[in-house]
């Protein structure tokens, strides 16, 4: 058997063991359903926040102090204007009050009412109305002023029915909009960030199992450490793929059930390279992002001797991921800037930035180069991680690369015997 074939076989043996050990456990189900829990918690939180907001909003009122025809005309104008707004953007309901002997005092007193919360009050002649409003009622005051204006216009023109009879035609965009591309780029970076945050971070603790079970010497005797690390990456990648396939299927089917208005808006998010190619490139960059970040995390995690050290490492690792996300987001926002070029060249932000590039620019040749560049860095990162691991755990290797003479707690006991 050739060396390459043997190393490949050994790598897949490690990957298979890790995949099976991860997937065929009850905790994997919890991991698989974690997004559902996130959505559930988010929904519960959102409902709570909405009900608090609604509770306050239900009591809000606009008040006009007027009588007779003016009062009816103002109510009719309110009914016409209110139709333009979406439900959650509509002004508070309009209430009409009869004018008392002192309208100004009456209007002021309304703001202290216990049974309702008045946002703005209009009184006086419509030609020169007085509008009082609460600190947050500036827009309500504008709305009442517009009502007065509308009523006067109708009175002057004498037209009760609409003067304009528009013809409405819905038009679908045939080309790709710049705004849609930028949004698609941002979604690509964000999507890649989320999946790598959830999945690549898993690699941090995988070597801890071998260290705590003392299996590492069995592996190190049979398999090159590069194969051990790469096998572990592949195993965890298999888990990530299973996760993505499951959720991809769910999202695809949910997407088919979305209302036309929502799916129509999603249609505007067309990437510059076209959707099928974008899906392919997104997958390619996901593989690279996973492998690159996973290799870094695996290498860093392999240096940790205890769970406490692993926990300490999780913060800088998350900061690193967020930094890559920020870097690539900058690239998505301004694809022709030096930031974009730097993010595309820097190996650990390159997959994110290039996914954004696929949304922003139709050129394909860059992606071939970028994938090759990223693959090279996967190999370099795994090699460096293996070297560090060998030095830290096995106390062997080139003396020039020695980082420390004595690890605090080597996984392989180097007591001489």
């Amino acid at each position, binding site marked *: *058997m050739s*060396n390459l074939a*043997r190393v490949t*076989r*050994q790598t897949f*043996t*490690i990957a*298979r*063991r890790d995949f099976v*050990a991860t997937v065929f*456990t009850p905790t994997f189900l919890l991991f698989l359903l974690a997004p559902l829990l996130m959505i559930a918690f988010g929904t519960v939180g959102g409902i709570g926040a909405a009900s608090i907001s609604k509770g306050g909003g239900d009591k809000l009122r606009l008040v006009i102090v007027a009588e007779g025809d003016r009062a009816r005309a103002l109510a009719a104008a309110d009914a016409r204007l209110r139709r333009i707004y979406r439900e959650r953007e509509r002004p508070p309901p309009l209430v009409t009050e009869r004018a008392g002997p002192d309208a100004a005092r009456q209007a002021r007193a309304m703001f202290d009412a216990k049974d309702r919360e008045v946002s703005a009050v209009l009184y006086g002649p419509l030609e020169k109305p007085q509008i009082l409003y609460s600190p947050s009622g500036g827009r309500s005051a504008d709305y009442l002023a517009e009502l007065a204006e509308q009523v006067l216009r109708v009175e002057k023109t004498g037209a009760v029915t609409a003067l304009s009879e528009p013809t409405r035609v819905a038009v679908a965009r045939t080309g790709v909009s710049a705004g849609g591309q930028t949004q698609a780029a941002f979604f690509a970076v964000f999507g890649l960030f989320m999946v790598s945050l959830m999945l690549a971070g898993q690699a941090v603790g995988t070597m801890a*199992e*071998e260290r705590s*079970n*003392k*299996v*590492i*010497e*069995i*592996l*190190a*005797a*049979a*398999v*090159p450490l590069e194969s051990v690390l790469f096998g572990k990456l592949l195993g965890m990648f298999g888990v990530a793929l299973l996760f993505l396939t499951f959720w991809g299927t769910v999202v695809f089917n949910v997407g088919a059930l979305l209302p036309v208005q929502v799916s129509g808006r999603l249609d505007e998010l067309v990437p510059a390279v076209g959707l099928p190619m974008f899906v392919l490139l997104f997958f390619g960059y996901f593989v690279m992002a996973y492998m690159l970040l996973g290799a870094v995390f695996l290498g860093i995690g392999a240096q940790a001797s205890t769970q406490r050290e692993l926990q300490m490492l999780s913060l800088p690792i998350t900061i690193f991921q967020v930094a890559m996300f920020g870097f690539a987001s900058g690239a998505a926002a301004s694809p022709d800037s030096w930031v974009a070029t730097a993010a595309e060249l820097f190996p650990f932000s390159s997959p994110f930035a290039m996914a954004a590039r696929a949304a922003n620019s139709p050129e394909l040749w860059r992606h071939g180069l970028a994938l090759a560049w990223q693959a090279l860095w996967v190999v370099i990162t795994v090699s460096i991680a293996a070297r560090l691991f060998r030095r830290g755990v*096995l*106390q*062997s*290797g080139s003396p020039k690369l020695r980082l420390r*003479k*004595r690890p605090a707690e080597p996984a*392989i*006991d*180097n*007591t*001489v*015997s």
Partner: protein
Amino acid sequence: MQSDLAVSASGLIKRFGERRVVDGVDIAVPQGMIYGVLGPNGAGKTTTLRMLLGIIEPDGGTRRVLGNERPREVSDQVGYLPEERGLYPGMKTVQAIAFMGALRGLDWKTGRKRGAELMEAAGLGHAVDQKIRKLSKGMAQLVQLLGSIVHQPDLLVLDEPFSGLDPVNQERLEKLILAERDRGATVLFSTHVMAHAERLCDRLTIIAGGKVRFEGTVADARATLPFKAHYVPHFPDDGLPALLPADAARDGDGWRFTLPDEGIEALLVKLIDAGYGISGLSIERPSLHDVFVRIVGHKALEAADVEALGEAAA
């Protein structure tokens, strides 16, 4: 290097920091033999085995394993049981054996089949589907050994295989080692328990302080020390020592001394003529333990133990 050697090494050196823990070790393990690497704690046995297997790289010297100067390239033909035992606790025993075989090139299906057969033969058939975490320490150790032989290696390297085993499992392990040799494999194992080495080894080397102190058969080792006599007089008195050899020393009711070159007969005649008589007499062949203690030395043994304890504590 001879082609009939399964393992050979010349001038192996390994330093940890400033300390040379292996200092120019030469080793030659003929094919098809059980070869013991003996030495006190801290002698450099494990480090030597790890260098031979390519787990760690030597700082000097050469090595050849199964005809290859790069041990990793023949790793599929080697089985290894490290001193620190390790298995995945969540795996079933037969899966663990198959996994270790798969690492060495055996397909999973064959690994599972052979694993079940090996467990049955080793008297562990009832535990085939048990998870590792449910096994006793001794059983887990045997499972790991079965994992190291499931791919039928040409060379089996065992580092302190008997440590932590009860007498029943020690006997099982001895049978397994002998069966491996009978199959044609070369077995190289380290130990500091002389009884196992004496029963099993065709050849052995004694390492102390990182250097080889002896190499040969068990018989060769014994031959480095003369036979001893243990004489119990029938009528002892204070004048007896004057008739005995110079190294005679009290041992219970009698005296122990090195057998004279000319034999025991003349001495016995003298003792009987002087009226001491013979209440008891035994001629004792030196044990491997005696050889080991003489070669390594009591002080070196104590020093090595203290040093090893210090390192373990660090």
